[in-house]
């Protein structure tokens, strides 16, 4: 098997320029997903993250058919869905999870139909769904880095407000805060994190980058900012190790990165210093408390 040292050699091999590009894009995307995913996990809005991830697909399909920018197509479709979900989730009339279920499967179906209009779509479909490390253009690397700075910047600027809304929506409203606008901000950030990740991880597995590192980080800390930093670290580290293993073993990159994330989560779950399984056995805090869904967020707003 290829050793880590060989992998480092391959990274600087001029014949394999796609490899460092894939590494940068994967790691930056995973880092951003770790930070934004912390909000997703804490709000119990994993399903919304899933919906946004899937709804990006028709936009990418349209862009592919029209030979336009896949990233822009994905952003347009994702943001449109994010705004729709935010609007629908402000009323109590419809069960939010049902609405999301309707929307995102429809969006995904639309994407499949659109992309089938393009000749020779099967190969492209596979790379959209499961990711690909080849064929990332130089400008996509630069774009990913710029977008990461933008997403993290906006998340930092609205951090205080996002925390208030996550903690207690009703109270945020009573302070006179614009909860709908803040929801849209967060959903758009989720969309951008998803679009950044689709290239290497693929549409089907992108949810794992949002949820798994953040969930693992939650087992390790009781503070939000350290949780975000830990999640970013777990995500970026998993991307590095995952890319190495997929390169060494010749297996799909997206799947390998997600599996490495999952191993990180299992380790955190078992050995977490405060909430870990072993610690809980020893009379500490039960480790399953954090996964309780937030009823105040889902449907009661």
């Amino acid at each position: 098997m290829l050793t880590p040292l060989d992998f480092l050699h391959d990274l600087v091999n001029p014949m394999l320029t796609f490899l460092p590009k894939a590494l940068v894009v994967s790691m930056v995307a995973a880092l951003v997903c770790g930070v934004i995913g912390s909000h997703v996990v804490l709000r119990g809005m994993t399903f919304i993250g899933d919906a946004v991830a899937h709804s990006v697909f028709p936009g990418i399909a349209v862009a592919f058919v029209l030979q336009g920018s896949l990233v822009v197509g994905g952003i347009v479709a994702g943001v449109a869905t994010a705004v729709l979900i935010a609007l629908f989730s402000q009323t109590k009339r419809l069960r939010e999870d049902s609405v999301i279920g309707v929307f995102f499967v429809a969006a995904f179906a639309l994407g499949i139909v659109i992309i089938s209009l393009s000749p020779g779509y099967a190969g492209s479909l596979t790379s959209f769904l499961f990711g690909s490390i080849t064929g990332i253009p130089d400008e996509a690397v630069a774009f990913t880095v710029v977008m990461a700075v933008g997403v993290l910047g906006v998340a930092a600027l609205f951090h205080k407000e996002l925390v208030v809304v996550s903690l207690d929506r009703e109270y945020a409203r009573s302070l006179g805060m614009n909860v709908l606008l803040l929801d849209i901000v967060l959903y758009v950030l989720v969309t951008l994190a998803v679009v950044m990740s689709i290239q290497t991880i693929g549409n089907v597995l992108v949810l794992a980058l949002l949820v798994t590192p953040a969930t693992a980080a939650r087992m390790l800390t009781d503070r939000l900012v350290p949780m975000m930093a830990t999640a970013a670290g777990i995500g970026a580290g998993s991307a590095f190790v995952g890319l190495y293993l997929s390169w060494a073993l010749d297996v799909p990159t997206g799947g390998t990165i997600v599996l490495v994330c999952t191993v990180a989560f299992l380790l955190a779950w078992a050995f977490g210093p405060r909430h870990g399984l072993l610690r809980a056995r020893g009379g500490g805090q039960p480790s399953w408390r954090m996964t309780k869904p937030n009823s105040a967020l889902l449907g009661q707003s």
Partner: protein
Amino acid sequence: MSEALAVRGLGVALGGRPVLHDVDLQLPAGGVHGLLGPNGAGKTTLFRSIMRLIPIHAGSISTPGGVGYVPQRHDVMWDFPITAQEVVLTGLTRDIGLFRRPRRAHVQSVADALARVRMTDLRSRPITEMSGGQRQRVMIARALARRPQLLLLDEPFTGLDMPTQELLTGLFRQLADEGTTLLMSTHDLTHAIVACDGLTLLNRTVVATGHPGELRSPKLWMDTFDVSEHSPLLRQVGMVHRATSLHQHPHADYEEQAC
């Protein structure tokens, strides 16, 4: 005396259905006031309209000294990785301003609010590791951070054991003595009669309001809670009234403090 809350002729409809009509309620500065009524009487709706969370279609509400809100505990995401003092700081989000960090005055307000609810020692503890009573005190501190004259508490005692309720009652008393007006909804009639300076019986509108000792007529309670004269509720209210008056007669001067 200045009023902490003045509600006049309030009417509220939710989804086209009238929930409150002709509600009049004036509270003076200082004191603990209980809001009693059956489920669906409009207690939370009254609070939400005072907080301007829902539109009102008739009447007026004024809170000249500011108002702090302590919603029901289940509205808060207690799994959130955040410490007590950070939660209290969220009460000042609007005062701090968008894209800005808390300044010295805000930090001081947080420290003062935590001190008032006797939570200074636990200020750095994550809320996940707190008991129900401690969480309730954190929420009260969050509301107090803006130094409002009026505090709305939506069922603060629900789910708390007796010692914790007693502790909170002491805290409410102390806040009231410092000049804050507390309006709390509760289903615990005994507790309300014993611990409140004033009571309001609400069912879509104000059925009666006054000192607990003035609300002895069973008819008021029957009308408010929609029960017959054989209801255990009336017996409970009557027994509490008898017990408090027996207790208070030999100590007439103690009455003011006890209630």
